[in-house]
């Protein structure tokens, strides 16, 4: 790669003749933003150039990949007389030509539009095209850091600097490459900057006044990104700016520690502990935080906790890197990548635990393209056949045959039926074809949109993504544009040899140029930002009937078909005209049910089908139910079609903000809100693999098996006193015996036994001693299957070589529903 600094013209050149009026100087294309580029992902490129003219100029700087020469991305620039300017624009990198490709070869041009006529600009050497190559990022997750631009840390603190610390954690996960620094002093005001990232770590305050950059980060997190904030290195102001009204974190004070102790927090799935005596103190920030899940504490204060933010997750650590690592010794095992891929520090198990959760790939877009396309086709195609007319033609044809048969029979010409029927069939078919042809040519221009709308919690911002289908009867230049950021990517089939361009003229403002649309249907994928007057939110609380709450949406969207996606299932939601909603405990949807209506209309069927293809919620979002509601499409400042009708729907995912009911309120918590996992029991019985949390499935077994299962009550409700629990088992295969027990202190108390259980079984527990919640807000049950001392068919197979296929058993599902009462908080 060649990077040429701007240089002053040598003195001798001052006497040269004036440059041509379309001349530019020192054009340079360089990496911007993360500096890492991935195929089919957006990134940011930086352009800088000089205007040597004595007058201002209006330019268009475009860049394209050499293997996609007709697809350009550009930036309109204004430059005053005799100036040099640095600007940037998003660009989507092309797919790789082959897997071994290591560079994106790019070419840029500058078009001068000052005189109203477009003319290519040349530099002082006559060159009109400028080539540059950007490295293809390794095929691995990408992490970016925001750190201080200078190394003026307080002397004596932090022998592990943030880069080294994050690197240690990444290498521990076997991630060897793709760690980059966001070095621009002002972040490009564009979410596309972050499209290639899976994770972002903020260890500096320098973006605290960069509102546009912070807004881009917020949207990126809300759409599924992972953000790590090192609170010991940022101010509370930055936390507040990032989290908006979702920020319920307050700083108490800061202290330097020379002795650190990390303990497992209430929500940690580990019992890890890590202590260090430090010669160089480490900064610790005492924070008070709510609505979070604490993985580790230090002296009772949160040391690492998670917050859900839309569909993303935020990790906040409050203690400096030295508390999480220690110097590597020769006896330590190497990092997964080998001795050449490790730092001088060895991560604690606590850090490994955090890294395991943090360094995961970013989730794919929610709306599956195939299903969205199908839905769009149906939306547009639905207008084509008039069902009544079609049915009428077919009914007429069907009823005419017997009538004609009777008439011909009376005339003794029944044999003519063999001729009449084909003629009638041809006629009916011809009429239907003519109807279809007629409908097709008279369909108005239509744009059909399927959107996924994600509100950014705590703000008035939203993010939309999805697919649009533009049906047009005549050729036109595609009028695709937007002013809320984002992008649109129309399918380009048939236009490979036509120059088309996506050009930005300002922050969040772009348009497609030179892009022709031929008659027919063309798909356009898109992603945009937007702002609404009032934050979109769903506030809910549990009560004696289930869940009730209030949904705030912009007016005129006709919300309907709402569902709560909870950790362990879906619940149908009733929307009321005043914005309230209710989800009854009895409205739990079956595994193949996605909407609560009994009889589904065509539109509901389409919606249901699309929702059936949505990815399952990630495990980490166990405690963050989402209200998903269908509305009409949202107008977010994009232009998709010149004229014609626009139809479509939007699926809005609104993370539910829970309010804790007043003390004394009775409530019922139904199964989907009670996630569970297999745990070590109070009697010391370790997990035996009865339930696989990763795949969320019960394991297929033979013979006997036992295990303790802990159901977690939502943290926002604690403390709660349970009054009853109903456990439901759905059994597959021969179990011989099923016993349900509870935990009474450290002992097991048998509650119910079934012999030869079959189908669906229920047990109600009302004994308060076994319903007591542990310190993590869980109640435990023990499941024992089979008859002890009976030969295990698996063992028999080992000796006889034969396995009875009928001896496997499995739980299809186990769920709980509890009732209880809210207790006063201490």
């Amino acid at each position, binding site marked *: 790669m060649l*990077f040429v600094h701007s240089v*002053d013209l040598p*003195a001798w050149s001052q006497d040269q003749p004036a440059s041509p009026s379309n001349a530019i100087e020192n054009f340079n294309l360089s*990496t911007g933003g993360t*500096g890492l580029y991935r195929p089919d992902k957006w990134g940011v490129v930086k352009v800088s150039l*000089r*205007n*040597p003219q004595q007058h201002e100029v209006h330019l268009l700087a475009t860049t394209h990949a050499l293997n996609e020469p007709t697809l350009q991305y550009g930036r309109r620039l*204004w*430059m*005053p007389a*005799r*100036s*040099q*300017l*640095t600007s940037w624009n998003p660009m989507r990198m092309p797919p790789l030509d082959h897997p071994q490709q290591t560079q994106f070869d790019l070419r840029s041009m500058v078009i001068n539009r000052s005189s109203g006529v477009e003319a290519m600009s040349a530099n002082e050497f006559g060159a009109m095209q400028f080539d540059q190559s950007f*490295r293809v990022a390794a095929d691995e997750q990408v992490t970016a850091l925001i750190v201080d631009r200078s190394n003026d840390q307080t002397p004596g603190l932090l*022998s592990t600097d943030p*880069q*080294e610390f994050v*690197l240690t954690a990444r*290498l521990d996960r076997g991630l060897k*490459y*793709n*760690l*980059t620094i966001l070095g621009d*002093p002002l972040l490009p*005001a564009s979410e596309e900057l972050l499209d290639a990232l899976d994770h972002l770590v903020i260890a500096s305050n320098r973006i605290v*006044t960069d*509102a*546009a950059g912070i807004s881009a980060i917020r949207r990126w997190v809300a759409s599924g990104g992972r953000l790590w904030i090192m609170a010991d290195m940022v101010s509370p102001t930055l936390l*507040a*700016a990032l989290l*908006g*009204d979702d920020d*319920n974190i*307050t700083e108490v*004070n800061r*202290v*330097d520690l*020379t*002795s650190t102790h990390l303990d497992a927090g209430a929500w940690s799935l580990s019992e890890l502990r890590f202590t260090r005596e430090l*010669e*160089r*103190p480490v900064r610790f920030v*005492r924070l008070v935080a*709510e609505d979070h899940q604490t993985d580790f504490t230090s002296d*009772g204060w949160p040391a690492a906790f998670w917050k859900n933010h839309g569909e993303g997750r935020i990790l906040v650590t409050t203690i400096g890197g030295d508390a999480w690592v220690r*110097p590597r010794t020769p006896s330590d095992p190497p990092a997964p990548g080998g001795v*050449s891929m*490790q*730092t*001088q520090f060895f991560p604690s198990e606590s850090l490994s635990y955090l890294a395991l959760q943090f360094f995961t790939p970013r989730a794919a877009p929610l709306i599956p393209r195939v299903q969205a396309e199908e839905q769009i086709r149906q939306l547009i195609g639905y207008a084509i056949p008039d069902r009544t007319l079609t049915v009428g033609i077919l009914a007429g044809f069907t009823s005419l045959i017997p009538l004609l048969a009777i008439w011909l029979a009376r005339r003794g010409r029944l044999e003519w039926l063999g001729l009449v029927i084909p003629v009638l069939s041809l006629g009916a078919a011809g009429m239907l074809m003519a109807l279809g042809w007629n409908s097709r040519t008279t369909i108005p221009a239509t744009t059909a949109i399927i959107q996924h709308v994600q509100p950014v919690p*705590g703000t*008035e911002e939203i993010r939309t993504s999805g697919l649009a289908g533009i049906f047009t009867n005549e050729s036109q230049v595609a009028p695709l544009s937007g002013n809320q950021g984002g992008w649109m990517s129309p399918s380009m089939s048939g236009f490979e040899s036509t120059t088309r361009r996506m050009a930005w003229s300002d*922050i969040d403002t772009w348009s497609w140029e030179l892009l022709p649309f031929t008659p027919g249907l063309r798909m356009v994928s898109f992603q945009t930002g937007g*702002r609404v007057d009032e*934050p979109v939110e769903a506030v809910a609380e549990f009560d004696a009937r289930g869940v009730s709450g209030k949904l705030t949406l912009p007016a005129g969207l006709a919300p309907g078909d709402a569902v709560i996606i909870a950790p362990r299932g879906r619940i149908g939601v009733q929307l009321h005209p005043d914005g309230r909603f209710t989800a009854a405990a009895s409205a739990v949807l079956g595994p193949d049910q996605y909407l609560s209506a009994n009889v589904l209309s065509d539109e509901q069927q389409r919606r249901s089908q699309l929702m059936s293809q949505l990815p399952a919620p990630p495990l980490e979002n166990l405690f963050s139910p989402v209200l998903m509601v269908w509305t009409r499409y949202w107008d977010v400042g994009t232009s998709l079609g010149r004229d014609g009708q626009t139809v479509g729907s939007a699926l809005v995912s609104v993370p539910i903000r829970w309010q804790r009911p007043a003390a004394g309120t009775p409530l019922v918590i139904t199964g989907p809100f009670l996630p569970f996992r297999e745990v070590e029991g109070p009697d010391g019985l370790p997990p035996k693999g009865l339930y696989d949390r990763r795949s969320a499935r019960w394991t297929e077994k033979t013979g006997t098996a036992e295990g303790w299962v802990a159901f977690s009550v939502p943290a926002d409700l604690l403390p709660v006193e349970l009054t009853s629990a109903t456990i439901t088992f759905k059994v597959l295969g021969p179990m011989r015996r099923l016993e349900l027990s509870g935990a009474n202190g450290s002992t097991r108390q048998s509650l119910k036994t079934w012999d030869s259980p079959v189908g669906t079984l229920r047990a109600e527990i009302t004994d308060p001693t076994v319903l007591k919640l542990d310190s993590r807000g869980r109640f435990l049950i023990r499941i024992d299957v089979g008859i002890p001392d009976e030969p295990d068919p698996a063992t028999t197979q080992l000796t006889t070589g034969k396995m009875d296929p009928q001896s496997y058993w499995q739980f299809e599902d186990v769920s709980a529903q509890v009732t209880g009462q809210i207790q006063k*908080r*201490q």
Partner: protein
Amino acid sequence: MCEFPIRDTALPPWMGGLRSQRIFVIAIVLTAVLVSTARAQDIPQIFLMDREPAERPLPSSYFIHPELIPMWRQALSQPESELQRQAAEALVEAHALGHDGMRAAVPELLAVLKSKTVHPAARHAAAHALIALDVRSAADRLFEASQDGGKDLRQLIEPALANWDFELIRPVWRQRVQSITTPRRDLILAIRGLGQQRDAQALKSLLGLALTPENSADIRLAAARAAGQIAPEGLETQAETLIAARNCVLNRLCAVALITRHTSERAIALNQSLGMDAEPGVAVEALRSLFALDPRLVLPLAEMAINHPDAGIRRIGIETYVTLPTPERMQTLSARLNDPHPQLRKLVRDKFLALSQEPTLEPTIRQSTIAVLAGDDWRGQEQASLLLGDLDEESVTARLLELLDSARPEVMLAAAMGLKSIAAPDSAMPVLAFAQRRTEAAGFTPLTDTQLAHLFELLGLLKTTEAMPLMEIYIPKTRKYRGFSRAAAIWALGLMQEGQTNERLASQLLERATDTRSSPAEDFYVRRASVLTLGRLRASPQLPGLKSLIGDQIDNNLMDLTVRWSILQITGEALPMRPPHTMRRTGWFLEPLPREKQELKEPD
């Protein structure tokens, strides 16, 4: 003329492509270097040779192109929000770098702020610039913009208005704290603003927020702090009630916050009780309040505080004792020379040095420090070595000589520095023997290099001519001996031979001084020390060689100034100096092209 990029700390883009592959290597190398030398650098290493010559280079000055601000103003007037945003932020940065004239852009900034059609990012940047430029006359416009410009803008503007004591916003804030539907961020802004402006009218509402258990912790704590800022008295009952109602950390934090300005006996007693709280986060706040009122209020708790596990609490205890010093307290405090926190033990050392001027305290300080030096704790040995060196305590010379062999790098170096400060004549021969041993031993680490540099300086001060043969070993460039020790040896030779002719030595030193083209080139410290010593030797035959190091004028850098000094010693001639560099800051997002070379000079 130089052009100085303003963003010289960012890696150039061409390296970005290889960054992720190299970063682990860089990390390993850096860590290795840091681990080996970091501790040595916790205490700044002060060399006497660095103080010569007395004349220091003047700092370079920077200017910006005279057309830069007009160009940014043009950009602000363009309809493109991105240009406006960049221009506004550039104004902030230029102002922060100390350049004047940014206020000329205020009209354009106000226009952007007022506009409803520009992108919110541009309005935010304009507001940021107005605040950074402290344009208080724009407070009204900023207030208007904050109320219709969204949460991000309020987050930026309202704290500034609070700082400026802007009164028109108070009714808005009061309304917010009274309404139960106020969004969280707006509520926190209002609470903090009212507290900062000490708005007594809001006290009741703030207390309501602070004392309602159902409110979230952040709201309660912010409200309690604000109420405490407002009320200098009268909240003792509420504080006591909070603690009595539910003994949780949050309640105690709120209680401390409420009475932070209170001076009543009751409040003081409450704070003193909270100063002993089991939760350090609470105790430190209570102690801070007491200390701010009157350090004497902390005295009953000071001894506990000084020995507390929490560094923040220990600091308050230390500050109390040094503010109200007595010999007994100094005795107690001497144990903190061993404090695990480096800043605290340095604090004690610095204060001891200052307080040793008091005749009533000096003996105790000395004796207690001597006792620490004799102890086993390396931290105490380190601090005591430096302190006793500054106090010129000759009686500890033997102990310092022992500590030269310490296993701890900090102590090794501190002992050497201490010996140098004391410069006792009878330490010369033991130091020489030690230096001889170190020179002959295998392995010459950066720590050895630094330690020997201090010891050679000591021998130079004592004019220990017996050390000359040893020091001459360090003159040639070798793989074994490093820059500091070599430079110090050469410098010390100069002190010992001052005014004497030594042609052999002078030739050697001129070679070192002019060795700039070999690979590797001579160490800068060694070159400079060689030049200094040539001056001391009055080495006239080496004059042409010295003059070859400079141009026709002396540049404003350390080497040229050293050569100038040396020539002055030899010939008595003070060579003329070039004025300090002035450099134009470049690298802005938008900047003018220079028209002619004359433009690159600083404007008159």
